[in-house]
């Protein structure tokens, strides 16, 4: 009986185009028109400034809990930038910059993070799913969308986002397995930001990389410098082209860092060191890209003020939204309102009416006794 080594024949590439000091590897640089580079930078800057504004709004109690993206702008924008509007984006809950790029009005996102379900409604022609809160459960949906697109013969690629913690969930593995078996046009983008709330990557997985997890399912996996927008874009463009060309799914691991908290509800100083954060601040994706654009004389003047004005206008529109109609929640449970929900809606409407007009809240007088009815003392009083 032999005992031999089976050569699995795989390796994981790491891709970096623009280093932390703004040095460019011109042999790997993706070809992007100057005005597109500026658009990309603007979207990243908008993501950063919006995030900072949202933290302030949350601290003031004007919006609820949300997950900041600070530090992950290159991972988000480099990947989603490779999609067409007709492609589909499947977000988790930390893709603010990418969602704005895909057409979500800022005020809608603010509404969503203020507890308004209306904030989860994509426009009729928008090919994006709403935010998904349970970790990794959106990944099988991306595979199903891709299967359906392929079934219909549509020229569509699906891109799904998730974090490092999601790679521990069963749904991640089921999704990659299905995607591989079905050979569907899907790109999995893992934003490995090193921390799943307070749990560091080394306690999340014993794998050397997350990208290598793809190989077990027969897909290509690549690791990229997630703070290098040009590298993320280069890898994403390749993966999207592969999917579009009928060559199946890809897993991209963006090695990045969440500079802020997991959500506005936790305090990262409890679980990680200042030195670590400072080290990653040195690799900030935004300053790195700005440096590069400055060298090429492409960095526009006054962009921050322009972006801030756009955010301020959106915040004003958000704050002008009236109070939510409590009765509207019954309207989207089923296609048609079932009898029991109609009754519950009427109960709530009557209650609200009585609260507005206390005179109407008087109980009805008791009806005459019927068969089997015993009068209680309360009614006799």
């Amino acid at each position, binding site marked *: 009986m032999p005992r031999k080594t089976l050569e699995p024949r795989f390796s994981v590439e790491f891709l970096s185009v623009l280093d932390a000091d703004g040095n460019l590897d011109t042999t790997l640089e993706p070809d992007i028109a100057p005005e597109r580079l500026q658009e990309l930078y603007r979207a990243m800057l908008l993501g950063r400034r919006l995030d900072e504004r949202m933290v302030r709004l949350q601290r003031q109690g004007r919006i609820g809990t949300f997950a900041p993206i600070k530090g992950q702008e290159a991972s988000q924008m480099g990947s989603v930038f490779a999609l067409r509007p007709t492609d589909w984006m499947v977000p988790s809950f930390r893709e603010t910059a990418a969602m704005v790029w895909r057409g979500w009005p800022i005020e809608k996102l603010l509404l969503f993070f203020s507890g308004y379900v209306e904030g989860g409604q994509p426009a009729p022609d928008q090919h994006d799913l709403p935010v998904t809160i349970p970790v990794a459960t959106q990944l099988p949906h991306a595979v199903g969308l891709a299967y359906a697109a392929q079934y219909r013969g549509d020229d569509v690629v699906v891109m799904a986002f998730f974090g490092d913690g999601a790679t521990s969930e069963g749904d991640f593995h*089921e999704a990659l397995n299905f995607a591989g078996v079905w050979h569907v046009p899907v790109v999995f983008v893992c934003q490995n930001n090193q921390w799943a709330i307070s749990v560091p990557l080394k306690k999340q997985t014993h794998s050397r990389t997350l990208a290598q997890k793809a190989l077990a399912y027969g897909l290509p996996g690549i690791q990229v410098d997630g703070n290098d927008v040009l590298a993320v874009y280069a890898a994403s463009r390749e993966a999207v082209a592969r999917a579009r060309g009928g060559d199946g799914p890809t897993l991209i691991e963006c090695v990045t860092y969440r500079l802020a908290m997991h959500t506005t509800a936790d305090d990262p100083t409890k679980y990680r060191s200042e030195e670590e954060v400072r080290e990653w601040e040195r690799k900030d994706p935004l300053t790195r890209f700005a440096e590069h654009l400055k060298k090429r004389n492409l960095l526009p003047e006054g962009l921050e003020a322009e972006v801030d004005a756009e955010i301020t206008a959106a915040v004003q529109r958000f704050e002008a939204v009236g109070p939510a109609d409590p009765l509207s929640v019954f309207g989207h449970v089923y296609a048609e309102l079932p009898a029991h929900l109609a009754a519950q809606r009427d109960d709530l409407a009557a209650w609200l009416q009585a609260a507005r007009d206390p005179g109407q809240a008087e109980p009805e007088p008791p009806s005459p006794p019927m068969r*089997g009815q015993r009068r209680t003392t309360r009614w006799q009083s």
Partner: protein
Amino acid sequence: MAKLNMVKALNLALLQEMERDEDIVVIGEDVGVDGGVFRVTEDLHRKFGSKRVIDSPLAEAGIIGASVGMALYGLKPVCEIQFSGFAFQCFHQIENHAARYRLRSQGRFHCQMVIRMPYGGGVRALEHHTESEEQFYAHIPGLTIVVPSGPRNARALLVSAIRDPDPVVFFEAKALYHAAKEDVPDEIEALPLRQAQIVREGTDLTLVAYGAMVRVAREAADVLAGEDGAQCEVIDLLTISPLDRQTVVASVQKTGRAVIVHEAPRSFGPGAEIAASIVEGAFLSLEAPIRRVTAWDVSFVGFARERTHIPDAGRVVAAVRETLAY
């Protein structure tokens, strides 16, 4: 018109609906070449190919999660979970996603999909192959829970479930798969969802049941008519959520007494909701406390004792006699 058992009747529904609508795909473990472990999807693979009748990897969350994605794109997946006892591995996809997409997206997306699962005991099967757990799904807003009680209504309800724009969990009692044959029309027949049927008229007491327990309730009603001269009205719910309260309440207003029969454990089960609806809607008509005849509140651990675990006609007859004598 052909005489079909429930397996063949369900197969006919799938076949005719798939011929009618190319957006319908069937997905599950062993549903393709093998035709499903109970043969409900038999021959569909040969007729429609592996793109429409998908032998999926062995992964419940993957099956339902991918089907949610397909439904969001506009396909109409009919998923098979091989046994309902394994559906907790995809319960999160049903509860978190299939049932919620319409509300979450404010009507922009909805999941038109059917999740078929064989449920229940009486066929001497293993643990996880015998459970009756419809109460978990009945508690979820946005889902419709359908439980046919025979070949003809199984076929007609599956047609309606496939055409319903919202997700439907479709429970098939294993005990009924081969239990009896009925005349099933050749042409497509559909039954409205969320509507109960009075399957036996009566004046003395209302028996409420669904799925395999309809047979038990009817058997009990026959015994009571013969031995006691008591006329029980038997209601087959067909859909347990949303519940057709109106039919149940109207019946109890007429009879004044109710006994509910189900195979799920008693506490917090469908019987509690039905009883509450009767109290809310027919309190003044009640002549006796409402009784529930159900499985016991213990997990199903083996088939050696299933005959005393699942309600039978004898237990129903005893409960009815106590209620009539109250």
